[in-house]
């Protein structure tokens, strides 16, 4: 874990420099679209310290000064498939956002939506010597967590302490300064395929940008879409993207589980394309303009001209009723939601006090989804749009931009991750030097 620790620390350091320079870009690389927002930070003074935000995080108020979206290229299931194409798409979107912001960005924070995320719950416990808990104790406690075998080629994406317990008191956000005998912590660890991360890093690097952080798209979509109460009481956010549908479960304002289903809007489009024998572009247009999942009697009479683009313009004048289109879309959407249901059941979502489910992402805007989803997922389902952030253009406020907006929040006030804490003294390589520095600090 040391290697990753260093690389994540390096990314955090880059993020701090970007904060000081005041400009950072967030890059949501999805399967169907790539969005880039340029953020300008106004400094940490301009927001008041809210409860639960650790001062370590270096949070800051921000404003979106540049935004651009482009069709994604070379991506499959949230992973980079053709790097040249993806690189071009990133260049397009970054250039457009830079042009709007009239400022050059060097640092980006990116999402990863693919890479088979897997969640692990970790627990660690240490004995205290009866004094107030300090940062070293927290670091030791976190370091005492036993890391499970992630498997070959896996890398840790998030490792967030979600709970601290001091003796019999649990549910603490920050145990520092309190007195107790035993400190234990729970940590949520999210691992992804390391090749996916490496490809992303490489791709961003080829665009002359520096990667200042990576976040799981499930996590950031949840941050943007769930309101504070939902995050506190327990809720699942389902981000229905183009290539993947990712889900994250929040409880007590921490993500405790994340997963993704490799099914999404692209599968719906390809079903339409196959079923109606139309090109993918036409199928996409049919889906977004006429699609739905609940048929009514009127839909039988609602005829849609296909415009098959088969070249035989005179003869190929097929039409299809809207009910037929819905009949093609609905099974696939049901399949996606059922897969999500399976993942939620596996995660023990039923055990949470509040079982709210929030649908977001581009797929959540299918008409009728709010009537279909409760049948599969349970009664407390709502569709949502991400919260508003300052300066965001109107066209980027839709549900499809949940992960993008969440990434802004992630950039502005990140959660403390494992690597943000001090290196425990007895593990550091420069132990004696650190001790000497500490001694000097204490004595002068």
């Amino acid at each position, binding site marked *: 874990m040391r290697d990753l620790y260093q690389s994540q620390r390096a990314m955090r350091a880059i993020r701090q420099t970007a904060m000081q320079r005041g400009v950072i870009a967030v890059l949501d690389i999805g399967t169907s679209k790539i969005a880039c927002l340029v953020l300008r930070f106004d400094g940490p003074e301009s927001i008041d310290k809210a409860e639960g935000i650790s001062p370590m995080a270096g949070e800051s108020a921000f404003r979106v000064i540049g935004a651009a979206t482009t069709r994604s290229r070379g991506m499959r299931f949230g992973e980079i498939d053709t790097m040249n194409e993806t690189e071009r798409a990133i*260049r397009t979107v970054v250039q457009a956002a*830079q042009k709007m912001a009239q400022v050059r960005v060097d640092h980006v924070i990116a999402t990863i939506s693919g890479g088979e995320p897997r969640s692990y719950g970790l627990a660690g416990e240490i004995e205290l010597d009866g004094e107030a808990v300090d940062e070293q104790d927290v670091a030791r406690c976190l370091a005492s967590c036993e890391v499970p075998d992630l498997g070959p080629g896996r890398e840790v994406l998030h490792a967030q302490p979600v709970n601290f317990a001091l003796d019999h008191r649990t549910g603490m956000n920050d145990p520092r300064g309190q007195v107790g005998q035993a400190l234990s912590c729970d940590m949520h660890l999210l691992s992804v395929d390391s090749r996916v991360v490496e490809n992303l890093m490489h791709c961003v690097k080829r665009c*002359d940008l520096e990667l200042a952080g990576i976040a799981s798209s499930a996590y950031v979509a949840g941050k943007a879409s769930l309101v504070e109460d939902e995050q506190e009481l327990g809720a699942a956010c389902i981000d229905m993207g183009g290539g993947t549908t990712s889900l994250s479960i929040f409880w007590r304002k921490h993500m405790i589980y994340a997963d993704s289903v490799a099914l999404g809007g692209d599968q719906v489009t390809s079903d339409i394309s196959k079923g109606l024998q139309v090109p993918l572009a036409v199928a996409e247009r049919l889906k977004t303009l006429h699609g739905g999942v609940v048929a009514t009697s009127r839909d039988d009479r609602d005829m849609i001209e296909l415009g098959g683009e088969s*070249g035989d313009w*005179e003869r190929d004048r097929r039409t299809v009723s809207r009910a037929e289109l819905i009949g093609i879309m609905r099974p696939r959407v049901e399949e996606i939601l059922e897969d999500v249901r399976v993942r939620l059941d596996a995660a023990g979502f039923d055990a949470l006090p509040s079982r709210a489910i929030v649908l977001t992402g581009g797929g959540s805007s299918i008409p009728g989804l709010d009537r279909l989803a409760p049948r599969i997922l349970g009664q407390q389902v709502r569709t949502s749009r991400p919260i508003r952030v300052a300066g965001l253009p109107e066209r980027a406020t839709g549900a499809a931009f949940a992960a993008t907006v969440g990434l802004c929040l992630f950039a502005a006030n990140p959660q403390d991750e494992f690597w943000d804490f001090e290196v425990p003294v007895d593990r550091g390589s420069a132990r004696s030097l650190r001790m000497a520095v500490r001694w000097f600090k204490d004595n002068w």
Partner: protein
Amino acid sequence: MRALIRRHARGFAPRAADPAPSRLAYRMQRLALTPSVRRGFTLGAPIFAVAMILTATFADPDRRAAVVAWVGEAKSQILRREEFMVRAVAVDGASAGLARTIRAQLPFELPLSSFEIDLDAVRDKLAKLEAVARVDLRVRSGGVLQIDVTERVPVLVWRTAEGLALLDGEGHRAGGIEARTLRPDLPLVAGRGADARVAEALALYAAARPLQGAIRGLLREGERRWTLVLDGGQKILLPETDPVPALERVIATDEAEDLMARDVVLVDMRNARRMTVRLAEDSARDLRKIKLLELGDD
């Protein structure tokens, strides 16, 4: 054929250009958005261009001279305007003689533009005049140079080896005079260093008012102490410190004993606690004879 044409247009036409910028275009745009490069273009390049144009223009000496001449001409045209011309001088606060001197001292011929009068220099020059304590100059509306003068008021006549001079209350020379009789109203001092102790001299004169008619003058001896010289060569030698009380003692003695009316040549107060009186030689001898007669020889 129509279908074929459409097909031709759709199927075989070159594909739409890649919307992605080329790597070069991307890098150039990023370079253009770099703050230093932006500043260079928006500020540096115009400044450089203007500097180059100016350099190229003024590289030619003829053109430079023409510009200098043009500027000089424009400047003098403005300076010569009627509104800026000074045509008269008004001197206030000076006696007629001093005013004449001041007018003679002005280093320019009128009329003249007010821009060309260096008021500071003129004021410094006038302030150097002995009779002038303070002088203020300004150009008044209507083209008048107003000179407000405060004259030095002479309070003493000072006789030195070089001649007679007038001193004001601060010891500054306030002009010279040809003869003592021109200013009989002012008391006389003499000796080197008298000008440094004018206040003391004035205090002594004030104290010596009972002897006023008999005083010839105050003599500064060795830049150290005063001697009051009376008519008939009588002298009162005063101490270095606190001469005024010593003089008052002498005067009190004079009023009580009528000291100065006797044949006294010198009253020595250099030791202020002990007054020493010197009689004229004949009187002293007579006095001695009388004493001898009274007391008998031996």
